[in-house]
């Protein structure tokens, strides 16, 4: 396991971050001074792991939302770095412009050829601004669809990494038909002849997430969230106050476990102890394993069977009562 370097902690993580900092200080001192501190370091590591387990065993939904948004959580670019080989990025929607908020390209995961689609958030401030903090415009959704159709033509499965607060709400986005392109993507993805696996790796922000997320298999990382509306947006509507977001996160039932129990996602991928942001290698490797396992299941199916099952999967989602006619 790699060294966990201290990460800027969220409030509830402060005790962990504190211990992590002391551990790395001791390690640095031990190395530079040739003093053997391994006993003390081991003891601190044990304490720190205990703390991690204790804190992460009782996360609230709102805390999970914070982890899903953690600045050091692996982004699609990290997945490309760690688990995609031979990546060949492809840009553009051939209609308006290249949307940096969507990344797409050819690559390999394991031995499989795949088309990578993902929401790009960016790491540096200029990057983040460039891709609107992961909020795609209509051209982004069209770009994704263009690459998906291309993949379909050559029989290449599609792997979609979802991580967006939502589709961008702006004047240009509406002028260019945000609602219409998302709808078109849902319509088209329903009939794609190649396997589609989607993974929510961070934020699953409503229609903007679903717009690249209609798939044969929908997976979620343990501390990601997927919601019809952001907790802040929900709180603003219900209590006219975005600061009630933590209450909203509770009632929206947006965690991976909730959605697994609802049958809306197919699998929850466990994160390393104390979150994906502490160990990119381990996180991306678990995701790789899950992607390949699901592709192994859906890829051998006949095209018609797979599309039939995809339709049946979505057809079955919904909860209601019905009084059936008597006789």
């Amino acid at each position, binding site marked *: 396991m790699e060294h966990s370097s201290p990460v800027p902690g969220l409030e509830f993580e402060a005790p962990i971050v504190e211990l992590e900092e002391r551990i790395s200080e001791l390690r640095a001192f031990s190395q530079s001074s040739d003093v053997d501190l391994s006993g003390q370091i081991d003891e601190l590591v044990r304490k720190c792991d205990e703390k991690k387990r204790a804190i992460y065993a009782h996360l609230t939904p709102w805390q999970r939302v914070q982890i899903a948004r953690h600045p050091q959580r692996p982004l699609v670019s990290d997945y490309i770095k760690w688990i995609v080989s031979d990546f060949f990025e492809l840009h553009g929607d051939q209609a308006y412009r290249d949307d940096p908020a969507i990344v797409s390209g050819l690559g390999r995961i394991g031995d499989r050829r795949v088309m990578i689609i993902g929401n790009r958030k960016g790491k540096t401030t200029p990057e983040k601004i460039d891709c609107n903090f992961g909020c795609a415009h209509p051209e982004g959704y069209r770009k994704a669809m263009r690459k998906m159709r291309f993949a379909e033509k050559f029989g290449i499965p599609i792997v979609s990494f979802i991580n967006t607060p939502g*589709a961008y709400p702006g004047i240009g986005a509406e002028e260019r038909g945000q*609602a219409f392109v998302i709808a078109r993507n849902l319509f088209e993805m329903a009939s794609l002849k190649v396997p589609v696996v989607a993974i929510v790796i961070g934020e699953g922000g*409503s229609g903007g997430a679903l717009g690249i997320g*209609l798939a044969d298999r929908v997976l979620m990382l343990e501390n990601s969230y997927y919601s019809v509306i952001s907790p802040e947006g929900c709180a603003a509507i219900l209590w006219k106050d975005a600061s009630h977001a933590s209450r909203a996160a509770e009632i929206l039932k947006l965690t991976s476990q909730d959605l697994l129990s*609802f049958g809306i996602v197919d699998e929850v991928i466990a994160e390393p102890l104390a979150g994906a942001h502490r160990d990119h290698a381990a996180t991306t490797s678990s995701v790789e394993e899950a992607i390949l396992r699901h592709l192994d299941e859906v890829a051998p199916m006949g095209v018609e069977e797979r599309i039939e099952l995809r339709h049946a999967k979505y057809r079955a989602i*919904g909860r209601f009562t019905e009084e059936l006619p008597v006789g």
Partner: protein
Amino acid sequence: MSTEESRPREGSRFRRRKEMPTGLWMRCSGCSKMVYKSLVLERGNVCPECNFHFDITSEERIRLLCDPDSFSEEFGSLESVDPLEFVARRSYRERLEQVKEKTGLNEACVVGTADIGGTPVVLGVSDPRFLMGSMGSVVGEKFTRGVDLAHELGRPFIFVSGSGGGARMDEGMFSLMQMAKTSAALQRFSDGGGLFVSILTNPTMGGAMASFAALGDVTLAEPKSLIGFAGPNVIKQTIKADLPSGFQSSEFNLEHGFIDRIVDRQDLREALIRLLAYLCPQA
């Protein structure tokens, strides 16, 4: 995304509830003029001065579009449950009970078979009185069954959308997934050669607009309707600027190439009859 409680504030251009003063005259919320009430009603609840289209109920809509007494409701016993046990200021269950009692409806859309100008169709109509016509599991299910029924009967499917709420927040991800479900159903239907006419009324937003409502072979809209993805207030807060006048209106959507045609309410039936006669000629 929203809920009944997010109703746009008074004074908004696309105000939803139009108080009808009792008496012979009413003030139009589109042009602020006093107009003769019976004239408004005669025109299908449209202002004779400025052509502002007020809300109408699903019954009224069906009466305006269908051949007399031809509509027969299907799937009418589908009712919402509360899968999230959603409790905010009031519980979802309580809100459902209240709105059912108040409106006599049991959900936000009605689906059934009907004839329009003699052509048999499957028709769905959302009703703004029921939680702003928002889409939860039942709306998604009724829509999807309507599409399947149209497919089975070889009829066109027509849906009149009017959903300020978009996806219904109270059902969380179940609501969001209705976008996928309805869009996938339309894909199948379309693949089989089915005709879907989407009619957009004020307002059609969010998850409804970003799924089935946007997927018509022909997309018609009533004038001056609010049509789009993100609510104007959300956009305003995001960009920290005022929105241009007419932003997200039917006319704006026509200008930007997203809808096929704007049709006045009193001409909708005729427009449908012409389209159906052309696209589904009767033997």
